[in-house]
């Protein structure tokens, strides 16, 4: 009896997670794959239509490539910014200063607020034409500029919100930095390496596995991003300049009743993400330095 329970016990502990995984992740994943070959409209019975959805996305959808382009630009804006920012702050917070715990908490705060709707609304009020930023700039004599409404800047403003939420990457960087033994740095210093040299030649290579991890995780998340762009620029922004892939999926699925088509598009995104991730891993072998190798 006792033995049997023991075998069973672990599953009970992870039951909530298992439930979530099967019901909220695996099931939708499988079902969306099936739906991607149908004309499912959410409310009506789906019919099998073969590859029609996939063909339509690539050949007859004026927004598909546009949205894909916007999404790539978005990742290009936000990813390097976020990582560099997180790393710089992590290095600063790695110093031995009094009250450093408070600073660490403060810098992590934006990430706790997360991609929440409230923050996105706040963002809108900062950057809109009558917003806070323009009011401040106005004091210095600058003319009001419509940051969100201007096609040239809107995507960058949305990306900036992501960059601002650098906390989770920062914490990982900080943990990585703590793991680098002071002896290595110290001996480099004794050998005459300057601060910059120590950072680029010692710290960065030792940190590279974490950089890779953050890079991949953040990239995946950015490709799938939706809520901030949706709240700040509801219809995809001026001239669809912030029409992220996630917004296109949402619109097709929930506004236009084309759930089958949206499922197909989401599988296309899945393939894109997995291909890029694979490439990064292949490429990273030369760049990432694992200490135990």
């Amino acid at each position, binding site marked *: 009896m006792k033995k049997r329970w023991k075998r069973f*016990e672990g599953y*009970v502990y992870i039951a909530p997670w298992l439930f979530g995984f099967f019901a909220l992740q695996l099931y939708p994943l499988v079902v969306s794959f099936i739906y991607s070959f149908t004309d499912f409209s959410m409310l009506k019975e789906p019919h099998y239509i073969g590859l029609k959805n996939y063909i339509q996305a690539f050949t007859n959808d004026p927004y598909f490539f546009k949205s894909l382009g916007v999404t790539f630009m978005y990742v290009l804006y936000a990813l390097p910014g976020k990582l560099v920012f997180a790393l710089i702050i992590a290095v600063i917070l790695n110093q031995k200063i009094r009250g450093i715990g408070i600073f660490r908490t403060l810098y992590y705060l934006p990430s706790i607020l997360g991609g929440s709707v409230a923050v996105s609304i706040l963002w809108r009020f900062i950057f809109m034409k009558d917003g806070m930023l323009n009011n401040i700039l106005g004091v210095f004599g600058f003319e009001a500029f419509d940051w969100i409404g201007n096609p040239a800047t809107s995507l960058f403003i949305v990306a900036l919100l992501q960059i601002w939420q650098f906390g989770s990457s920062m914490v990982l960087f900080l943990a990585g930095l703590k793991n680098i033994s002071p002896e290595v740095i110290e001996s480099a210093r004794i050998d005459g390496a300057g601060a910059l040299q120590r950072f680029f030649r010692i710290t960065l290579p030792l940190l590279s596995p974490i950089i890779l991890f953050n890079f991949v995780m953040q990239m995946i998340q950015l490709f799938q991003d939706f809520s901030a762009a949706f709240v700040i620029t*509801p219809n995809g922004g*001026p*001239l669809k300049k912030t029409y992220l892939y996630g917004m296109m999926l949402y619109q097709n699925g*929930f506004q*236009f*009743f084309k759930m089958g088509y949206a499922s197909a598009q989401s599988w296309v995104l899945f393939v894109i993400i997995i291909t890029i991730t694979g490439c990064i891993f292949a490429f990273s072998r030369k760049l990432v330095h694992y200490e135990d190798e």
Partner: protein
Amino acid sequence: MANRRFKQIVAFGLALTMTAGMGAAAAYADDGENIVLRFSWWGAEARHEKTLAAFERYHELHPNITIEGEYSSIDTYYQKLVTQFAGGTAPDIIQIDQPWIEDFAMQGQLLEDLNDYTDIIDMSTYDADYLAGWCMNGDRLEALPLGLNGYTTMYNKKALEAAGIEIDSSTELTWDDILTLGEQYKEANPDGIFLHTDPNTLEKNIFRPYVIQQYGGYFLNPDFTIGFTRESLINAYNYLIELSDRGIIQPLNETATFDGKIDQNPVWVNGQAALCIRWVSDLQQLLNDNVDIGVCRIPVNEGAAETGINCKPSMVATIYTGSEHKKEAAEFINWMVNDEEATTILADCRGVPPTERQRTQLQEAGMLNAAMAEGISIAVANAGTPQNGLSDNAEVTAISLDIIARVLYKQISPEDAADEMIQRTEEKLETLKNS
């Protein structure tokens, strides 16, 4: 050992809570006597307060029935509802927009046929033609109107007075008047905006009437063909460019932030905007300390084929086919539209009420907003073709909005825009026809 036992208990407890949580929803809906009805609607604060007050009163009258409100703003209401339909969790009583009857009809039977409830709901108070014209899906009566609606021009008396422009309820504006008065207004108030818009208003309440007035008829015909012509589109695009270039309307990029929240735009809030073409039912939402609203007919050019004024029920009440308490839901709807006390509580929170009895009662009590009543009578007197649900298709609207944006950003010429609009709308109609 004790610690281990404790962990086991906690683990089981957690697992149990989860299952219990899932079962709870079902258990709580119905425990014999006590019935919980869910009612969903969208709207502004005044409507929320009055609707909730009506629920409370109904509960006092029928202690075994509790009505729970689910309310949100219009911009996400539709998507939420569709998701609820798909999951089978839609509310018992649903307030929907009239064109959605047709939308949902294409997706299967989601709404009850109210013809089955004539013994519960007294429909003799409604105008039979009105019900037949607006609430039918084939021979199924799927909805009951909760308010009357129509396009109207709402002007801010304070702003116009300050600029020395005279408009009253008998003024019959033309689209050219908008341009000349707009420039006059701009001279008196350089920071002001004459015609207040958001992208959706620009498309639905300005662009479409302008297009329709040129030929008269549907925007999209019921047989899945386009109603508009290439020429009518080109003229309308050119007019929008005029409005934008002369600064009569706010640039699209500035209004986009307030799409669907036209009353929250600082230009309107601060009383800097002069007029706005919208549904009469939006009137109360648009009132504030800096705004005193008067109404008149929407602009129509001389020699127009029709006014393009869309008159229809503002919101309609429906019963979800998946509801477990359809009878009780019908009883509540009956109370809502036919009971005197309910009329007093709800007043004009859903626009001008649809039945003669409600209107007389409110008017006698002085509870009907005068501008709103006037707006409805002007709209009805000048009504154009009642636009169908197909014309309101979400994807067609999105296509049209996208093209208008590119026209105003000078990315595409009006001629090319018209061609693209025709081509893409026809493609969409083709798929709708075959589905």
